[in-house]
């Protein structure tokens, strides 16, 4: 019975970590040379195929660089935009039978720019002055949202069969000039790319708009002062990047047997790798990077023996590996200061992603909280089996989500590899249980340690990476692990997955019963929550707060930022590892996609939107992610997985207004309307204002209370000044008189007059 409920069928997760898609990409990789097989010149075919593939990468990479430069958004959503355009193109051409040109115009020239414009206007426009992390989460939300919408509305299962249309006059035609022969689709890809590059060069070099765009990159504020509408310039660049991404998506489509979001995740990561090669700023370098990656991938699929497991994993994952290595070793990315805008300071300071000030007295709630929990747990035991099973899943997931509370909430690192930590723990424990009969109770510990080891493994080389680069590194790491390591027979048990027993040790422990297992999971969650709570309010939590506030400042008082970050990674991975073991034990098996990139992204999105800083946020995330799809299913909605992605993706729109997290936002709203009045930030601000503007008591009164800031401060100064002037023979005073600037006001007497006002 219990196995009937699987939350994430591998084919259904919204971003599509589906093996089928990636494997299809791998086997279809050489597909560019489809028409070439009969043609003699292998090398020419390789070059042309690599060139075409590289062109698509380069195109989307250009879009990445464009949006990053003009609006400081690292637009992960470009992959989703490319997917959407390809899906529209496919539907118009193959399903509705519209002419190719018309389909192209709609998909690339209408949908492409409109999507870019829509995203900018509704979301990213207001994000210029928020922390980079918030922008990243929003982009992540869109990356999940767009494909989910497309799949939920019309492009769901069975919607895309048959080969996607190529942008050619004649399908399968091969043009040949002497020894060089090029299949039509590759030729058109190359020609379109040349067209785009020439157009961009012309735009930037010779047009007024191009000049304005280059200026916006330097300083949007400065550009506004010069009377240019920076907003309009950004809008245009988003439309432009949207069009380019759409073009890339449409050109890439014929390569794949089907159009799935996961194929476009590969495209996105390849494009990111190319953009990182160009250090996110240089368009020429980005183009070179894209082309090189295309060649490399083409060569790899041609010359690597196709039967080895490593090769099968490596071929489609090459972009991930390249991105990871680039992030680690490409000079110029480490320790890079992001903002160079000379007017960056004029905007109000950004509100932090978890900017709530620590609640000072939360210990008073411990007793009612404990009692409440006990009552709820007891009530849960009365639930019918299937619901208790689901709630157990929610609790297990909440435990895993507490790992985000440590890493994202406390250390401020947006990690997209929490599922990899969980998976490492789960597979480690499961293999031990299956091969060495190690009881899963011990496995829990082992799983935690394996997770911890993987956490250290990823945190050590990425220590120098900040913000977005760390997130990208974790994304690349997840993709690599998901594609190369987890599918191995020795790790994830191959396609069949692994059987994972419930904790059972004959004669000692028996948690095989659902109720007993439920209680075990509750206990695990309670321990994890307690650890997180203690660490957050303890020294480690405060040090991490400090580092998040200012890493330089923290180092200046002797805090070792590297050590603190490694600690956070290790603790987070430990929790995730234990949670992963519980998760697989709950399902009593593992299957592909449980710990894949799709879940990594979805988990991060859900937890951060709900509140990465609080334990409540993790709990809400766990319950929402398990129970919401059940609700959808119960309501009879078709394709519930896609709709789930739509809803969570739409959560991004709320997140934009409440970066502190939905749970805290609702709590604050409730507090304002129904709760006891608390000292809000506004009130604190008001108190400070009064404190500063209040006239100081006369010096006579102030002298009796040494704390009074200004009176005490002003008192001794004239004396000292007099002493200095005396010993210097009036030197400093004469300086003031002789200064060539406007004569300094006799400032020594000034403070007393201020004190008297």
């Amino acid at each position, binding site marked *: 019975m219990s196995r009937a409920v699987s939350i994430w069928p591998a084919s259904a997760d919204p971003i599509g970590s589906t093996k089928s898609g990636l494997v299809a990409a791998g086997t279809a990789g050489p597909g560019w040379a489809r028409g070439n097989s009969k043609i003699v010149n292998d090398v020419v075919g390789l070059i042309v195929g690599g060139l075409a593939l590289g062109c698509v990468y380069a195109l989307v990479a250009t879009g990445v660089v464009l949006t990053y430069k003009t609006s400081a958004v690292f637009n992960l959503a470009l992959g989703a935009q490319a997917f959407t355009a390809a899906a529209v193109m496919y539907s118009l051409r193959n399903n509705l039978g519209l002419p190719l040109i018309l389909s192209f115009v709609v998909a690339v020239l209408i949908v492409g720019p409109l999507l870019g414009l829509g995203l900018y206007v509704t979301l990213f426009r207001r994000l210029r002055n928020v922390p980079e992390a918030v922008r990243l989460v929003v982009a992540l939300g869109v990356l999940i949202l767009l494909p989910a919408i497309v799949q939920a509305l019309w492009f769901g299962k069975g919607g895309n069969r048959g080969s996607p249309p190529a942008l050619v006059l004649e399908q399968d035609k091969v043009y040949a000039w002497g020894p060089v022969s090029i299949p039509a689709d590759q030729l058109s890809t190359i020609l379109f790319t040349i067209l785009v590059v020439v157009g961009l060069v012309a735009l930037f070099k010779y047009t007024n708009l191009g000049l304005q765009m280059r200026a916006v990159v330097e300083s949007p504020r400065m550009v506004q002062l010069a009377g240019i509408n920076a907003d309009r310039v950004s809008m245009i660049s988003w439309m432009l990047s949207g069009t380019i991404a759409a073009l890339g998506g449409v050109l890439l489509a014929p390569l794949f047997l089907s159009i799935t979001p996961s194929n476009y995740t590969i495209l996105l990561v390849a494009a990111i790798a190319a953009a990182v090669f160009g250090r996110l700023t240089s368009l020429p370098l980005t183009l070179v990077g894209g082309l090189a990656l295309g060649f490399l991938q083409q060569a790899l699929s041609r010359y690597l023996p196709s039967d080895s497991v490593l090769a099968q994993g490596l071929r489609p994952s090459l972009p991930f590996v390249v991105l990871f290595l680039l992030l680690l070793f490409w000079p110029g990315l480490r320790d890079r200061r992001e903002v160079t805008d000379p007017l960056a300071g004029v905007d109000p300071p950004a509100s932090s992603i*978890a*900017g709530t*000030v620590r609640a*000072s007295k939360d210990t008073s709630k411990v007793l009612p909280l404990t009692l409440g929990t006990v009552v709820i747990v007891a009530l849960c035991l009365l639930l019918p089996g299937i619901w208790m099973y689901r709630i157990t899943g929610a609790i297990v997931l909440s435990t895993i989500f507490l790992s985000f509370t440590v890493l994202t909430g406390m250390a401020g690192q947006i990690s997209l590899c929490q599922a990899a930590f969980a998976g490492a723990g789960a597979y480690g424990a499961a293999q031990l249980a299956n091969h060495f009969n190690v009881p899963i109770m011990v496995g829990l510990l082992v799983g935690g340690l394996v997770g911890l080891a993987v956490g250290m493994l990823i945190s050590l080389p990425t220590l120098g990476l900040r913000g977005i680069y760390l997130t990208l590194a974790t994304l690349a790491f997840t993709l690599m692990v998901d594609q190369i390591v987890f599918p191995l027979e020795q790790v994830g048990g191959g396609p069949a997955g692994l059987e994972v027993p419930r904790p059972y040790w004959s004669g000692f422990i028996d948690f095989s019963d659902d109720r007993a297992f439920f209680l075990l999971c509750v206990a695990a969650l309670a321990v994890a929550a307690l650890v997180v709570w*203690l*660490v957050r*309010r*303890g*020294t*480690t*939590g*405060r*040090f991490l*707060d*400090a580092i*998040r*506030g*200012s890493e*330089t*400042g*923290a*180092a*200046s*008082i*002797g*805090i*070792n930022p590297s050590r603190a970050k490694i*600690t956070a990674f290790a603790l987070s991975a430990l929790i995730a590892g234990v949670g992963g073991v519980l998760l697989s034990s709950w399902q009593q098996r593992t299957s592909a996609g449980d710990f894949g990139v799709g879940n990594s992204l979805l988990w991060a999105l859900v937890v951060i939107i709900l509140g990465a800083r609080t334990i409540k946020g993790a709990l809400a995330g766990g319950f929402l992610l398990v129970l919401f799809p059940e609700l959808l299913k119960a309501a009879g909605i078709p394709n519930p997985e896609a709709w789930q992605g739509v809803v969570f993706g739409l959560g991004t729109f709320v997140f934009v207004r409440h970066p502190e997290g939905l749970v805290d936002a609702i709590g604050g709203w409730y507090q304002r309307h129904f709760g006891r009045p608390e000292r809000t*930030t506004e009130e*604190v*601000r008001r*108190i*400070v204002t009064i404190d*500063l503007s209040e006239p100081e008591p006369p010096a006579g009164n102030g002298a009796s209370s*040494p*704390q*009074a*800031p200004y009176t*005490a*401060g*002003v008192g*001794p*100064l004239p004396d000292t*000044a007099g002493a*200095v002037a005396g*010993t*210097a*023979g009036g*030197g*400093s005073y*004469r*300086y*003031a008189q*002789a*200064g*060539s600037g406007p004569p*300094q006001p006799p*400032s020594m007497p000034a*403070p007393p007059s*201020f004190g008297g006002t």
Partner: protein
Amino acid sequence: MPLLAAESISKHFGGIAALVGVDLNVEPGEFVGLVGPNGAGKTTLFNCLLGILKPNRGRVFFRGRDLSRMPMHARARLGLGRTFQRLEVFSGMTVRDHFLVADRSRRKKGGLFGDLVGQGTPTRREDARAEAVGELLGLTELLDVPVDSLSLGHARLVELGRAVLTEPKLLMLDEPSSGLDRVETMEMARVLQSVQAERGTAILLVEHDLEMVSLVTSRLYVLEFGEMLATGPTPQVLAHPVVRRAYVGDVA
């Protein structure tokens, strides 16, 4: 042995010589100023002393140890405190938490295990130390206010208090008066004097405001065009015609 000793520091950016063979010493407990017109190389020298820039020639010793290959947190642990010209406060934290964090960093706390056995909560002693520094800086009323809502002057004082709580042997201050008005500057001067007097901390002050420098420092270095123009007791140095000409362009 001087507390801080910089020996013939040279630094050039491309063809431009920012510093040419500059020497600088700070004795324990001394209040030293470093002034110079804009572009004289004050900030470059400061960054070389702190190891943010690597000098092309010359070395920096602090308590007899070579600083050049030491990360910032290690230097802080050696007793080198500093504040920043552009604020580096911990946004989102209260003033009290700033002081607490600095205090714990000095006492080499920060182990995960300690937190798990419940040693994370601030003790009465820690609170007392934070309050003492708050009183010294005139921040008593603001201890529980988030640092983001403080004025620039108060935020600078928080940075100073944070550095003071690490009990440094030498405090290096980078233009602490920049952005402050007269009253706030004088308040800063008073606080610096009491830190030096009560805690025996040596202070190296890079400052634009000659008035503040003349108030608080006992010895002064003057940089001009990357070279050390003069050094000596503050009043004499400031009164010297050459210094005055260099600094204010005054020929009289």
